């Protein structure tokens, strides 16, 4: 098993979906932190933003902003962090996604999610 120095932050309010993603990433050697909404993510990033390699976030989540707005804010303030965005709703137009981010439609395959996260991980 390989170990990665950078942390994956998974933001998903649906706990079973989040658990599956977190387990999958952890089993592949990643350190994974969890959040149930955008506000939690921002709080984590304010403290430890430099340690996060990839943010994997759902769009529809409770909180002051949704996952898409969160992704834009992360792109502006922490441009190094890789962004993987998911939603059960229609694919946003590419113009609505932050530059360099990727979109994964729900219901996504956890193996495909793994592949995307690996590719989005910033070069060491």
């Amino acid at each position: 098993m390989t170990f990665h120095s950078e942390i994956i932050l998974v933001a998903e309010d649906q706990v079973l979906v989040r658990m599956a993603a977190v387990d999958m990433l952890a089993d592949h050697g990643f350190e994974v932190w969890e959040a149930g909404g955008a506000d939690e993510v921002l709080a984590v990033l304010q403290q430890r933003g430099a340690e996060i390699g990839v943010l994997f976030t759902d769009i529809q989540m409770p909180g002051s902003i949704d996952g898409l707005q969160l992704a834009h804010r992360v792109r502006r303030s922490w441009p190094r962090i890789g962004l993987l965005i998911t939603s059960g709703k229609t694919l946003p137009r590419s113009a609505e996604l932050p530059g360099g981010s990727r979109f994964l439609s729900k219901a996504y395959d956890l193996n495909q999610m793994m592949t995307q996260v690996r590719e989005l991980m910033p070069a060491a």
Partner: protein
Amino acid sequence: MRSNRGACVLMLRLRLAFREPPLFQEGQAMAAHTQPQTDIGLSLVLAVIASSGAPLLLLDGELLVIAASASFCRTFRIDPATVAGRRLFELGAGEWNVPQLHSLLAATAAGHAEIEAYEMDLRRAGQEPRRLVLNAQKLAYDNEDNIRLLLTVADVTDARNAESLRLEMVREKDDLLRDKAVLLQELQHRIANSLQIIASVLLQSARRVQSDETRSHLHEAHQRVMSVAALQRQLSASSLDDVRLRPYFVELCQSIGASMIRDHDKLKLEAFGDDSTARADVSVSLGLIVTELVINALKHAFPDDRGGKINVGYLSHGANWTLSVDDNGIGMPETTDQAKSGLGTSIIKALAGQLHARIEIRDTNPGTSISIIHTETGILAVKSAAAPAVAAI
């Protein structure tokens, strides 16, 4: 004297002459007409007003009614006998006594204004108000002392009601369409989330169990859910009810490959096809058949990490179509043991039956080709010459 047309026309002694304004200067017309001509002109004017299909009133400078058309009396339920020589504001039960109309008509009579499309509600006891549009003009006329006003009154209540009803219906339809789109998106969102939960739980179970056989079953179950999820993604990405099959199968193969093929350099899984589309219910069956056939090929055709390829193809011609899954693996076992046929086989048979399609299995040496064939005329005999080794699942 009443009009012999039965209209409520009051004839007063008028020294009225009609002229065409552009042709004569003020004052010349009188000289050009004799008394008998004036009477003829008056009779003509009154007859025109009487027979007019539109509610019309001819008023004098004091706003006394000189003539009213039959349609005015009928529309506003005024007894023709009561019209003669009365002031407009005394007509009926006083419902025409509207101060603003009074001032407008007075201003028109004085030549200060002209009433164009003035709107008012006519309110009568025990009746719904009627919306009226009024036009009044001072007639160009030779005698400054005898002022004449022509007042036309259009009742637009019904037309306005019909128009507002139509607009309301258009608005309601737009609202319903918008609600439907929002509901549909919400529904798709929920389906996607539900499928995500089911798939995630199945995959987590697969990763935690000890038994290889159970793990394999759970992986297959996960893959079946993912094949439905792939269809759901196709449906939510397009506004159509039909599914474009090639992109669907391509995505499906990527999904199956991602979870079930370890070495993508050795084993290739690809989808080909024409630009066919199919209804969502047909597409989900086709997708599940592809899933089962590909899982079957992955399980049995390439033992001991053997390399090779699996091709998924779909071609249609009119209502006829063929779905095929070909591999270049080790081929079929010599005998088919029906008793051992698994869930996958049952699923394929059931879905092919539902689609009125037959199943053909060919030993292509190397490998196996399985086709699901639908022909419009039903299940026909296979041309034996073209299919030397056909077996049925």
